[in-house]
């Protein structure tokens, strides 16, 4: 055997375990789920076949379609608001906070990241609830006369999500800002650009790929999350993951849950294609 062939064989040997694991526990399960999404339920038992009925139902049954719309709306709002809030925070840490304190400032900015995910949503419930800290504080200050009803609304879901993703995006945007040569900003100012022009024409375009990547990550994690809308949004208005869990739990309707999951994945794929195209356009 030639050295190259031996090297290749060794290479295959080393990749194989990972590939087999993902084949068995990622690709095949996904294929099973895809096949299941074309099955239907008769008398609480699954009947296999090729029946697009589940998909037809998702796009024609208003309660189903509304969940899809809710999910997309919430995710878009969360992504945009998180980027808008995180960018200045990352910029202030990168450019205003003295170098030696930046690591600490960043560590603090993401500290609540380390609370349990379930507990974090619960904590927001304590803040936003009818008798929560926020209402008590606003009532105490005389700013409102009756408690705000935030808990169990879309606003609460959005706040909970934004809290999480502001931390995540601050990290990624900071990493982007700090690796820019300071000479870009100096060159722009040297050539007559003001603060705003420097940001608009130089800093923003140069960090845009990083921002889009972070926003895409936000989109993926947000649209697939069950916990936050379930704890903070309640059941008044369902998101796609809530609907999926509902189908599995109450009805045991795995085919419909599978079809909903496939739709969820298609939305993510679409988002990826859109942002990828946008990124490439920016680079041309």
């Amino acid at each position, binding site marked *: 055997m030639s050295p190259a062939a031996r090297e290749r064989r060794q290479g295959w040997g080393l990749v194989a375990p990972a590939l087999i694991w993902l084949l068995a526990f990622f690709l095949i399960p996904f294929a099973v789920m895809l096949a299941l999404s074309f099955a239907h339920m008769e008398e609480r038992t699954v009947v296999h076949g090729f029946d697009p009925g589940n998909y037809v139902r998702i796009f024609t049954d208003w309660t189903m379609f509304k969940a899809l719309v809710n999910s997309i709306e919430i995710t878009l709002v969360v992504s945009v608001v998180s980027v808008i809030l995180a960018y200045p925070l990352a910029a202030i840490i990168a450019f205003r906070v003295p170098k030696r304190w930046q690591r600490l400032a960043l560590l603090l900015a993401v*500290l609540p990241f*380390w609370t349990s995910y379930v507990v974090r949503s619960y904590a927001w419930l304590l803040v936003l609830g009818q008798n929560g800290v926020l209402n008590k504080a606003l009532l105490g200050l005389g700013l409102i006369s009756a408690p705000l009803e935030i808990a169990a609304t879309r606003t609460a879901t959005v706040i909970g999500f934004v809290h999480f993703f502001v931390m995540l995006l601050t990290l990624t945007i900071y990493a982007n800002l700090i690796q820019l040569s300071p000479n870009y900003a100096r060159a722009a100012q040297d050539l007559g650009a003001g603060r705003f022009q420097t940001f608009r024409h130089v800093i923003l375009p140069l960090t845009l790929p990083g921002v889009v990547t972070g926003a895409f990550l936000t989109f993926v994690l947000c*649209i697939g999350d069950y916990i936050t809308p379930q704890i903070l949004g309640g059941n008044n208005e369902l998101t796609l993951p809530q609907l999926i869990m509902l189908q599995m739990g109450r009805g045991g309707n795995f085919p419909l849950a599978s079809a909903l999951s496939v739709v969820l994945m298609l939305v993510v794929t679409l988002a990826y294609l859109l942002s990828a195209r946008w990124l490439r356009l920016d680079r041309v």
Partner: protein
Amino acid sequence: MMRALSWLYLAAAYLFIFLPVAVLVVFSFQDGRLPVPPLQGMSLKWYEKVLSDGDLMAALVNSLIVALISSAVALVLGFLAAHALARVKLPGSVLMRVLIIAPMTVSTLIIGLGLLTFFNQIGIRPSLLATGIGHVVINLPLCFAITYAAMGDHQKNAERAARDLGASEAQVLWLVSAPMLAPALAAAFFLSVTFSWDEFIIAFLLTRFDVTLPVEIWSMLRSGLSPATNAIGSLVFLVSIGVVVLAEIFILRRRA
């Protein structure tokens, strides 16, 4: 003017970021039945209650076991694959990289649901083992990506030198590659443990009788607001912070 606005914004951002955590911790000491204002006095009784709760402590141990074992498996598989794909030109290596990274872009809900339907069909019951298998699927891409990114020409040359001096492939991996990549391997393992420890949806779908900590906390939530939830949440937070600080010191000291 701009300067003052910056500091104001920074303060507001920190307030927003810390508000829920502060509320969580403060009301874990609530001497009353509800974790909402007014604070009726300081008490450690909820911590006592939580620490003597057998189910909760069992769930905590389960979580630790699942996190450590699944992360170790994910790290080994990810490292070996990264080592092979970074060194050897294999046909279809781009496709393999894409496949290995792919689970990162798929919602964990979908991964969990896929595994649940698959396991149902082949007759595997929901269990901690099933959950661990799922956690390897989500952490393998992470371990692969981190170790793959850390492998440079520097490593490649050292490995070539080791082979030239007569080391077998296994010796190269164990005596040269792994020690050189130690910081990346440690980071990957640490992140995997964190993600697995905190993962809810896969564990929720794939466990039944023995559950992990997030699932146990979830079932506590269903019985309404209670300072006990605050107490266990604060404990988890404290432990996580401790680990982060240790990791920070450890990594900083290694760099110095």
